[in-house]
């Protein structure tokens, strides 16, 4: 089950991006999701993210994320109206409670909760997209240039994780062969059996780690300055995607300063569209952010285009 990363290489366009371009695309999406308060902008962002997820063939994976987020979204929608008393349009007067005072549910608070749950879904979908397009090894090798030692710890642990799960299975099988029945008995009787398993796992894996250390020592770890090499190439597609992300960020900052992408919920709901600028800024942001999606579409359809970028 854990033999593979969440990421799976399918040779798709978005997976072929340089890690810097892919990371900055996900990063810009993240910042925008946290910045926007206007529900229209949040919905637009969500639309782009879902299109990008669809471009990497990830809608099935996204459904799992949707299920995780639904519970949290519900929580956000319930908590907000119950504790917020700032809204003017009260639609329900509740009983008095010791900590919260009188319960009131206002229309504004429900709208706020709904907008925040869209934000939550957008953020979780961004991570779904990130998991689908960036190979962990690429990020680690990028990190190794700045923080070699931490990157080494992380990549060692990443490599050991599936191996250790396999090792745990092995120890379990050996114990079963020796006559230990892990399924029999009450919880109290089963715990010592698991304690023995964990003890063996701890001992043998720590012993292994000393062997790894000796292998590192033999390969001159820590004896001088480290060298590193780059395997990823920067192609026109990376410049285009990075340019799109930066343009979206710049326009979003402008929109935020002008108040296009902000929306005040309290005490009364604001107008969703405050003027033509709101729509223009939104369209520019969505177009700039969909550059990778459009490129991905062209990459699949047109061999000439594929060769050029």
């Amino acid at each position, binding site marked *: 089950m854990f033999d593979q990363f969440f990421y799976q290489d399918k040779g798709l366009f978005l997976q072929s991006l340089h890690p810097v371009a892919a990371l900055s695309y996900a990063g810009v999406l993240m910042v925008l999701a946290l910045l926007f308060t206007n529900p229209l902008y949040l919905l637009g962002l969500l639309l782009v993210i879902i299109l990008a997820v669809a471009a990497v063939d990830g809608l099935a994976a996204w459904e799992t994320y949707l299920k995780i987020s639904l519970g949290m979204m519900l929580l956000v929608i319930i908590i907000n109206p119950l504790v917020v008393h700032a809204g003017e349009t009260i639609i329900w007067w509740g009983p008095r409670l010791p900590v919260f005072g009188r319960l009131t549910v206002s229309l504004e608070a429900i709208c706020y909760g709904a907008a925040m749950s869209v934000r939550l879904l957008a953020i979780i979908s961004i991570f779904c997209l990130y*998991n689908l397009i960036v190979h962990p090894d690429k990020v680690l090798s990028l990190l190794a240039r700045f923080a070699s030692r931490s990157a080494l710890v992380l990549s060692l642990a990443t490599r050991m994780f599936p191996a250790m799960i396999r090792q745990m299975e092995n120890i379990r099988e050996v114990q079963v062969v020796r006559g230990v029945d*892990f399924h029999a008995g009450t*919880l109290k009787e089963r715990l010592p059996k698991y304690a023995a398993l964990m003890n063996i796992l701890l001992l043998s894996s720590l012993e292994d780690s000393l062997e790894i250390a000796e292998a590192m020592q033999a390969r001159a770890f820590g004896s001088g300055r480290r060298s590193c090499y780059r395997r990823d190439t920067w192609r026109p597609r990376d410049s285009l995607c990075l340019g799109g992300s930066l343009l979206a960020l710049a326009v979003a900052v402008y929109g935020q300063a002008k108040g296009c992408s*902000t929306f005040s919920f309290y005490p009364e709901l604001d107008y969703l569209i405050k003027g033509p600028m709101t729509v223009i800024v939104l369209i520019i942001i969505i177009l700039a952010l969909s550059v990778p999606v459009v490129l991905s579409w062209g990459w699949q359809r047109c061999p000439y285009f594929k060769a050029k970028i």
Partner: protein
Amino acid sequence: MAFWRKMLFPFALVFILGLLLASIKINALLLGQGWGLLAPVIIIMALVLLYWGFEQGRVSSREVAVIAMLGTIAAVGRVPFAALPNIQPATFMVIISGFVFGPRAGFMAGSTAALVSNFFLGQGPWTPWQMFAWGLAGTSAGVMGIIFPRAGKKVMTVFSFLWGYLFGCIMNLWTWTGFVHPLNWQSFVATYAASFWFDTFHATGNAAFYLLFGPSFVKILQRFRRKLEVTLLPVIEGDKNAAL
């Protein structure tokens, strides 16, 4: 360069304080939304600083390998046992690693466990907060180990129990700052109440693990800590000739 290395920590602290002060102004600019953005920025900066501290310190290859292995064991602890559902010894593993190997190793084991297990389980906005929470659990256990090296089973069981709630508290900060408005203590209590039972399970699980496995695991880890220390003996001229 050496100057910057020395000054990075104070600068970062000033920057975080500046962000906190600016939040009063920024909040007005973002209509009270600033915290959703500010809180992750502060958490990530704290993580970067802590990792940077690890980069700067003197660490032997044995320490690197053992820290990676402890992180992996804690990460594997997130995968629930098939026969014992809902019991995850990750926090317990991080706490005893920190207790035996010190604050730095505790932090690295905890944050590595969170990041690496999420490579397989899926990264999310929760990743930095989990890294921070588990890292802090390891660090605080390391500090416990320094101040009370003789802290016995009882003290550490209570300590692990409390970390169940503290962990939930840190993770609640994420939901609270990101998606609840306004940020006052009533809304915090409501957010906390929603997760109270999960935290109680977590805390009870931690305490049970320490009660049952704590002493034997600490003994194993202490044996390996002694093995970590390698002393290189200088070569003496006379000995060299004798060897030849």
